[in-house]
């Protein structure tokens, strides 16, 4: 009895490489790496980079399911929209980072606490 994770295979039978589940594993690892980056760093730029990695992991899932599920182009269109929104998000976030650096002299997010008191 095979587990569902091993069931979908696109290439030659018996190989896992290139199947849907291998894409899912890659995307899951990238997602976890992005989360680890966000949680462990205090530099705002690292948090941005982690966000980009998470968005890419989600995009891999969109495209992989669109291909292996036979769901047509909708997954790719969604991935393209995510890419466009990520570009917008990166531009705004970097502007904010530069602004924070200008105002606080640091982009350590634990120091930007002037709203706290």
């Amino acid at each position, binding site marked *: 009895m095979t587990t569902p994770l091993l069931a979908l295979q696109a290439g030659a039978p018996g190989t896992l490489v290139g199947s849907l589940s291998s894409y899912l594993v890659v995307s899951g690892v990238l997602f976890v790496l992005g989360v680890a980056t966000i949680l462990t760093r205090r530099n705002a730029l690292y948090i941005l980079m982690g966000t980009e990695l998470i968005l890419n992991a989600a995009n891999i899932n969109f495209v992989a399911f669109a291909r292996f599920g*036979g769901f047509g182009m909708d997954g790719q269109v969604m991935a393209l929209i995510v890419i466009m929104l990520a570009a917008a998000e990166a531009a705004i976030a970097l*502007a904010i980072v530069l602004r924070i650096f200008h105002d606080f002299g640091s982009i350590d997010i634990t120091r930007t606490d002037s709203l706290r008191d």
Partner: protein
Amino acid sequence: MDFMFVVFAALALVGGLVMAFHQSIVHSAFGLVASLFGVAGLYWTLGADFLGGLQVLIYVGGITVLLLFAVMLSTRDSTRMAFGRYVLVAPIIGLLGMFLFQVYQGVLQVVTELGSPPGEPEPTTQRFGELFLAREGYLLPFELVAVLLLLVLIGAVTVARRGHGAAGPRRESTT
């Protein structure tokens, strides 16, 4: 195709590891570049040629250049991470990985039941054009994204511009 998958997946994963664990932010940024390029390669192995090209153009060409500019303009302070935080974060990450594994198993079952097997990949650029400019396709989101990008352009300039007037620089205890 399988060989290319291994190459690009390894590129994406190694880049991601370098980004997550390297001490220097410039090295991390280049790790992110490698990872994003690997993801573009994964798109190509999935038959999404146009999407992979756009990924290289927008991410590898655009966003990372912005990131590197921000790195050069802003990081004077240390970017070292506290290794103690990994001890705290490791269980969260482990749980997250297990959760993802479970979700993927469930989703894979659904896809095996509902989906159809993949056919031969074909060029997608024309399909994208038809989908984005047809009224029954994605015309409205396309136009909304265009408006959003214009807003972002103006907003980013407004936010990043040197403030004048009352909101002057307020440097306190720099670095």
